């Protein structure tokens, strides 16, 4: 607010008011003065700052001009550098030209030396020397030479003359060396052959050299192989390896080829180094010869080992029995392929001989796989050390193609097929034989066939592994699964199907059987005994086989991993899938065990339990104190019952495998509770009768629990709860038990409210109205 406004706003009517206003104005003035003074005091500071800024400004001008100067200098330097480097480039080019020129001069000098030398060398038949001259000549840039010849046209020493001389000499030497090489081959002069083999690359004939030399070697190997094949049997006899005669010959053939590559690889690398396809060219030609030799060998093998005849026989016997199996409309037969266990056709085809042939074939197959691997490794090393990187892949690719399309490969596929046919036949026949010769010693739970069959199957898979073929191994694993799932499971199941002989399905049948026996004056107990034992043995066999399968798969998994350490992902998956399929046969075996158990249930447990449970009805459960005392003093029902059950179980205890015995106890427990429950419903109880029942059920429960390592507690729950109901003191006590919160130790109710009411009505001292009134 300004002073005037203040004045205007004030009332200055009285003196005091005027004085007061004056005083106030004076105060204001003093304040304003003070402010002005403080502002003036800052003047120096501000001026100093202003002058500082002025000075800086002039400094900035200098910086600006300096940086401009610097800029100019940099541009200059750049231009300078540009021109220097251009000069350097030009210098470099000049140097290149100079060295090229020098090279040309060298070439020209050498050209003359060579052209003179080569004529002389040819005259002296010094092929190495002439070839060295030619090699020098060929190493020159031929186009450049021609240009040089043009450049120096008219010069006294005609370059083109020299070139012409050398060209002629090259042609001549090439022809000559080829001729000499052929002569050496004809004379079987190995030293000369090798001599000229090394000269071919010097005169630029890499391909011809490799071809001629390879063919020479092929011819030599062919002769050797032919001779050895003719004497195959004699050689084998001398080495007393008759059964591996052809496998040994095949090994020898493959070793020969492998050795040729091994020995010549360094020579080729040294003399044919520039042509990177030389070694693979050689391998290609050799493989052709190898194919032929192996083919001849296999022809002999097939003839001598009667492969066609035997394959035909195997095929016929398989087909014949397959037809028989199918026409029988055998409903248990899951697979169409089946042979009668009577079989025995293995006798026609001597199993020992087949065994030996199979062994020989697996050796053959393994050797070929080894050979392929050896060659691949050789080439791999070769390309890695001697071939430019960009060509390496192509050469390895070419190798894979040669081997894949080779007749050797195809022949091995054929022979693997024969192997699989014979192996399957051998395995199936041996398994049938083992089943046919099944024996068991009394006291043993299993019979001989389980060990025998699994021994045979393991042998088959192991033998498949020795072929080194993943396809073959997978096929044999598949065949093993088929054999187990077919012949083996059927053999186990057959006696189970006809039931357990002791138990008579119904009383009439039992009565008739006994009548007949009595009429004939004897009981055929021995037949029945044998039947019983066989039933239990096969049941145990099935049970133990589930473990054997597991073990077999585990062992084979390890051995497969050992045999094929490097597999592709697909191969790994194939092997895994086949093994999984083999493992799945376990399910069929488990089903067989279950089937047998159900047979025992219906033919042993049910009929035997029936009369015992009926005894229960003869014991009154309406007791007074005296009767109770009398009852407890005598033989109670449960004592009688447990003695009977114990007798029944004991008759099985030693003859069933532990797992099967436990399964039997479990089935028994189920059946006991079902039948006892039914019997309970038929009688009535008073308080003491209920007490007795509860004691009986407890005794039964503890007996059954003690009889097995498996838990039968949950099977007893329902019957225990029924006993609890009938043992109630008063009906109102039920609520204590019914609510889950009230009884922590008791498992949840297995009875519906309606069932609870039904059972409570069995207590003759409970009133119907009270039962109806229960809140459940």
């Amino acid at each position, binding site marked *: 607010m300004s002073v005037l406004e203040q004045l205007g706003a004030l009332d200055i009517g009285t003196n005091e008011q005027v004085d007061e206003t004056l005083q106030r104005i004076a105060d204001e003035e003093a304040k304003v003065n003070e402010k002005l003074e403080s502002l003036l005091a800052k003047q120096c500071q501000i001026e100093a700052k202003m002058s500082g800024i002025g000075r800086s400004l002039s400094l900035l001008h200098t910086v600006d001009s300096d940086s401009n100067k610097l800029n100019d200098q940099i541009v200059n330097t750049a231009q300078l550098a540009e021109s220097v480097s251009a000069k350097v480039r030009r210098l470099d080019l000049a140097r290149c030209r100079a060295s090229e020129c020098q090279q040309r001069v060298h070439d020209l000098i050498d050209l003359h030396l060579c052209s003179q030398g080569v004529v002389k060398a040819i005259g002296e038949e010094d092929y190495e020397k002439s070839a060295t001259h030619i090699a020098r000549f060929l190493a020159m840039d031929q186009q450049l030479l021609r240009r040089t010849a043009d450049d120096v046209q008219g010069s006294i020493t005609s370059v083109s003359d020299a070139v012409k001389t050398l060209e002629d000499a090259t042609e001549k030497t090439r022809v000559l060396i080829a001729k000499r090489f052929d002569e050496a081959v004809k004379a079987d002069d190995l030293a000369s052959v090798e001599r000229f083999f090394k000269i071919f690359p010097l005169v630029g004939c890499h391909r011809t050299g490799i071809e001629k030399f390879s063919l020479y070697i092929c011819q030599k190997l062919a002769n050797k192989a032919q001779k050895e094949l003719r004497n195959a049997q004699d050689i084998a006899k001398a080495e007393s390896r008759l059964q591996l005669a052809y496998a040994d010959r095949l090994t020898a053939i493959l070793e020969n080829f492998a050795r040729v590559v091994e020995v010549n690889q360094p020579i080729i690398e040294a003399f044919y180094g520039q042509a990177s396809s030389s070694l693979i060219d050689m391998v290609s030609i050799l493989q052709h010869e190898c194919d032929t030799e192996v083919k001849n060998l296999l022809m002999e093998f097939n003839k001598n080992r009667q492969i066609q005849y035997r394959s035909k026989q195997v095929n016929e016997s398989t087909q014949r029995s397959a037809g028989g199996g199918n026409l029988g409309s055998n409903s248990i037969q*899951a697979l*169409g392929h089946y042979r009668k266990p009577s079989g025995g056709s293995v006798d026609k085809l001597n199993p020992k001989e087949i065994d030996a042939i199979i062994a020989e074939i697996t050796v053959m197959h393994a050797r070929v796989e080894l050979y392929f691997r050896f060659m691949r490794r050789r080439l791999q090393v070769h390309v890695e050390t001697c071939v430019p990187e960009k060509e390496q892949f192509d050469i390895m690719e070419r190798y894979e193609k040669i081997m894949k399309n080779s007749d050797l490969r195809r022949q091995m596929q054929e022979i*693997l097929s024969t192997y699989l046919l014979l192996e399957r036949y051998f395995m199936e026949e041996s398994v049938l034989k083992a089943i046919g010769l099944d024996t068991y010693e009394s006291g043993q739970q299993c019979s001989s066939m389980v060990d025998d069959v699994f021994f045979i199957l393991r042998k088959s898979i192991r033998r498949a592994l020795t072929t080194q073929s993943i396809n073959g191994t997978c096929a044999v694993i598949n065949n093993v699964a088929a054999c187990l*799932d077919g012949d083996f499971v059927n053999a186990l199941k057959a006696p189970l199907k006809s039931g357990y002989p002791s138990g008579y399905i119904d009383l009439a049948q039992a009565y008739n059987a006994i009548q007949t026996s009595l009429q004939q004056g004897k009981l055929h107990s021995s037949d029945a005994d044998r039947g019983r034992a066989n039933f239990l043995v096969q049941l145990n066999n099935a049970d133990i086989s589930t473990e054997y399968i597991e073990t077999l798969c585990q062992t084979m998994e390890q051995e497969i991993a050992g045999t094929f350490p490097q597999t592709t992902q697909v191969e790994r998956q194939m092997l895994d899938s086949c093994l999984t399929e083999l493992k799945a046969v376990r399910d069929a075996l488990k089903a067989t065990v279950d089937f047998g158990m159900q047979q025992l249930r219906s033919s042993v447990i049910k009929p035997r339990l029936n009369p015992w449970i009926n005894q229960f009805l003869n014991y009154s459960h309406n007791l007074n104190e005296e009767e109770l005392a009398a009852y407890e003093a005598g033989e109670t029902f449960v004592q009688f019952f447990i003695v009977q059950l114990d007798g029944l179980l004991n008759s099985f205890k030693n003859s069933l495998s532990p797992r099967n015995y436990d399964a039997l106890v479990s089935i028994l427990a189920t059946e006991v509770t079902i039948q006892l429950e039914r019997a309970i419903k038929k009688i009535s109880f008073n308080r003491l009768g209920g007490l007795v029942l509860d004691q009986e059920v407890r005794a039964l429960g503890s007996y059954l629990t003690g009889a097995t390592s498996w838990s039968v507690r949950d099977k007893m729950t329902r019957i225990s709860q029924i006993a609890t109901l009938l043992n109630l003191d008063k009906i109102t006590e039920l609520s204590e038990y019914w609510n889950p919160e009230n009884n922590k130790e008791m498992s949840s109710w297995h009875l519906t409210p309606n069932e609870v009411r039904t059972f409570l009505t069995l207590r003759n001292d409970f009133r119907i109205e009270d039962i109806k009134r229960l809140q459940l």
Partner: protein
Amino acid sequence: MEDYKFLFKIVLVGNAGVGKTCLVRRFTQGLFPPGQGATIGVDFMIKTVEVEGEKIKLQIWDTAGQERFRSITQSYYRSAHALILVYDISCQPTFDCLPDWLREIQEYANSKVLKILVGNKTDRDDREIPTQIGEEFAKQHDMYFLETSAKEAENVERLFYEIAAELIGQARSKDGSSSAAAAAAQRQSEGSSIGLGSFSAKAAQSNCCGGLASGGSNSSQGG
């Protein structure tokens, strides 16, 4: 653990060169392989498909048609859930061999196995086997029928998807959907497949045959 509810094994058989490998590659990799060689022994591929909201793992075994691999390929019939028998509609001999193949199937495969007859290479204009002939043959021998072209991707997806759907149907009708799934899940957790057992008791379902067979005639009308 992979997440799938069923695992089915499908095996392809048929003469050499009818296009089995091409069909499988078309389905699993979506391409028509140029100039790949004949199959050696068996080849193996996996594809997971989704049918009716369920993840299905298909294990596809592509067998070699050449005679000398027969003893290898035969061993795979037993565990197959479905067998695809392929011929080349432009090559009469491949059709004439079908009875031989059926004999093999009869001998080695599960009698309840799902069988599908496939006439491949419908894209070719030098057809030798009319669709109707193929269809009749299939009907006679209780097989489903479909014509395909691996080259033009015709009916290939459909072939495999219908097989998957059919196999699910069978698996369910066998043990009721929930328990089948539970069983499958359990086997799966054990690292194993649905064994032959789950199929051996399946009821023969002739009505499903209509689905694929009519599919075949539809495609012939279209083409």
